[in-house]
């Protein structure tokens, strides 16, 4: 296993208990999605893996995270990034005054030789041809989709073994979502990079991943192959908005009570 998380517990500010028992395993080159409602703790899980939790007064109080057989709980974010765990934050964080290529080069900060930087840049442009014509543009002026491409590209520059993508489809046009998810899938297959994808777009996420975990109230409550999750009654009701097979739910029929969740695998 590339990444193993066991019974992870995270507390913010010494009082807010966010994660209460998250367990996950991600294999080498795995393509895994993490589903859950708002506030379930998905982003916190990613931050715990990448180590940036400490910058937000969060602390791992229980359980552990292992990467390549090595504990990374107490490592600094930069040390974790050096090991090949690269996170793309939610809401497109970029150096908006720098150009696209400068942004990408920032991602290659850890690369030692210029040759390698060039090689990597070429790879990014291969996956996102659109970025070629935008290479000298100030990145703050790019469209949302282009920015997202650039950010995934920037992560790719850092020689990742696993990429943690936090809602890459946030605020993007449907066509752009499709395109970006397709590229993510391609990167996973061709570059042997494992992907942990957090997505609100459950349908799209289950379509491109092989395995999924569902979180609720700071716990993983269900896991399984994406194919199986797609037909799980609870997932259908609470995430896909389907009542009977195939029939869409109408907001007009929304009830004031919820069906009991069972999370039966």
């Amino acid at each position, binding site marked *: 296993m590339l990444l193993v998380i066991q019974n992870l517990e995270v507390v913010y500010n010494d009082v807010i208990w966010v994660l209460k028992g998250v367990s996950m395993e991600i294999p080498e080159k795995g393509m895994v999605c993490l589903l859950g409602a708002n506030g379930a703790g998905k982003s916190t899980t990613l931050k715990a893996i990448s180590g940036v939790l400490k910058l937000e007064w969060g602390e791992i109080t229980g359980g552990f995270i292992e990467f390549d057989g090595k504990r990374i709980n107490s490592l600094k974010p930069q040390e974790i990034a050096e090991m090949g765990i690269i996170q793309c934050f939610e809401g497109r964080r970029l150096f908006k005054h720098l150009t696209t290529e400068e942004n990408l080069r920032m991602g290659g900060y850890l690369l030692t030789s210029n040759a390698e930087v060039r090689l990597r840049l070429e790879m990014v442009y291969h996956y996102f041809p659109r970025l070629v014509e935008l290479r000298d543009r100030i990145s703050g002026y790019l469209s949302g989709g282009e920015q997202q491409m650039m950010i995934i590209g920037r992560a790719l520059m850092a020689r990742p073994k696993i990429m943690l993508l936090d809602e890459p489809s946030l605020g993007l046009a449907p066509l752009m979502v499709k395109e970006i998810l397709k590229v993510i899938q391609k990167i996973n297959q061709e570059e042997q990079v494992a992907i942990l994808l957090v997505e609100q777009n459950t349908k799209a996420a289950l379509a491109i991943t092989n395995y999924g975990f569902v979180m609720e109230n700071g716990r993983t*409550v*269900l896991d399984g192959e994406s194919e199986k999750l797609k037909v799980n*009654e609870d997932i259908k009701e609470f995430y896909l908005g389907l009542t009977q097979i195939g029939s869409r739910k109408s907001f007009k029929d929304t*009830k*004031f009570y919820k*069906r009991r969740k069972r999370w039966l695998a």
Partner: protein
Amino acid sequence: MVDRTHKEKEGMSIDQLKTGIGDVPGHHGENWRLKTSPQLLVENAVMWRDKPALRKKRYGIWNTYSWQDYLDNVKYFSLGLISLGFKRNEKIVIVGDNDPEWWYCQMGAQSVGGVGVGVFIDCTPPEVKYFVQHSAATFAVAKDQEQCDKLLDIKHEILDVKKVIYWEPKGMRKYTDPWLIDFREVLQLGRQYEKSHPNAFEDMVKTGNVDDISCLAYTSGTTGLPKAAQLSYRTLIAWNYALWKYYPIYLGQDYFSFLCPAWAVDQILGFVGCLEQGLVVNFPESPSTVVEDAREISSVIELAGARMWEERYRNLFTRINDADWLKRTAYRVAMSIGRIYVERRQTNQLNLLCEALYKLADQLAFRSLRDRMGYVRSTVCLVAGAMMSPELFTFFQIVGIPLYTYYGITEAGFITMQQPGDIKRGSCGKVLPGREVKITGKENEVLVKADNAMMFSGYFRNEDATKSALQDGWYHTGDAGYIDHDGHFFFMDRISEMMALADGNKFSPTYIESELRCSQYIADAMVVGQGKDFVAALIQIDLKNVGQWAESKHIAYNTYVDLSQKAPVYELISLELKVINARIPERSRIKAFVNLHKEFDADEAEMTRTRKLRRAPLFEKYGEIIDGIYSEADMITVDTEVKYRDGRKGSVRAQVKAMRI
């Protein structure tokens, strides 16, 4: 749309609410008022007008309703019912959580001379249909949108129901079916009706007779369809009398109503008992806040099934394990002192040191435990002693919760009850006055005879069942039990549930199961072994406690299936079973077990709504597993169908291990 009678008092703390009342000795003492509930209500409203009668928590604040508010709501609701066509002796089905409206609706119907029929709130539409059809109800009350949807689902099959009344209007705006009507509208109808028929309510209440049927109490139906025992006001009063004779209470004390009113408990205590004694009925904000709300109220009496107490115990265990080191140690030390104290008290070997130590332990640990669990003000807690492990009983004694066991049935109320100062381990106490108990046949069947007042008035629409149960005045309980030389009654099991191994050795699965549930890690279990060589158990692990244990041992898990099948969890359970086996007679000890991959569920007809196992369907459903255990297979693959409450079905496929001890 704030109703006048629903006026909400400003937020006051619970202690403020209580000042000025209480400590008035038991209102009626020996002089019980033999009257119908509505008659008692009218009388109370005159005597205690502005004193609190009901209290409901809404948005975190306790709202109090006086006896006058209570009466007004009941009055206008019943007049509203009349104007909608409700008549004497008709039945009204009520599906809802514990709310004042539940009380108003039943009492309103009773004022007309009608009969209340409570239905469990988590029943599926077909189950609701059974209750409505069997009771021939002409009106139904449904709490909210969810319950109304259930009734609408089966509308075409229950055409006798004239109206469905709901009291929680949220989400009901778009429902145009004239079949449905808001509770407030019914009150409005009642007010109009009063204008044209003054004194109609008072006259109606006066015609009520204490021998009228007050409600139908459905038996749990472990083996077949539930039967409806008819209970008259006189019977309910007589049962209350048996209780309060031993445990005096005071006007204005609090009763906390949280068990589904479809259970006979609230019919006995929440309705009649509180009316007789002037207790305040308190309702929790919602089912999910029961624990916190119960703590704030601290009911003067609590009557609950053994499962309820077992759950309390397991929850307490979870919290203690989560506490810091100091508290955990204090708890452990206090427990061992308490154990010695209780043992010595039973054998009358108490000395000063022992008592002093216990007092200390009580101050340091038990008092706050009782507070946390909501028993600081409790005079008496009762458990249907039938199936509670003596071990657990001792635990509650140590903590200082005044828990007593009784033996009772829906058809004849309390039959035997433990009394303070006369407690024997495992017994259900002595036979109460006015009752006779006879043990007959080689199966030790318990027969009960009681004054007419204390017996139910037959099963509704089931003459045959009534005749076969009541012979020459003796009620055949179908339970097995015995009475020892001191007159203490011991309950064994339902005769129909007793099992025998291949060598003819009899054992009681329910008893073994209750011992199993005594473990913090076992939430439920089904014991099998009829006609086999040894006894085996299907275990349902306690997700919270086993999960906590797994976390402390760094065992990762995601789902229930996942956790239940972990090898270390099997080890844990087998260790627990070894401890429990030591308490069980040698030949009925458990030799093999399986951790089930899912929890027993009433939605799938595996349990009754009162959470008793339904063995026949379970046997069939888990046949593969049971066969697997006895054929010495190690891995058993099972496909189980799961039903969701809205009627959808899914399936779970899992592999379970069988382990031998």
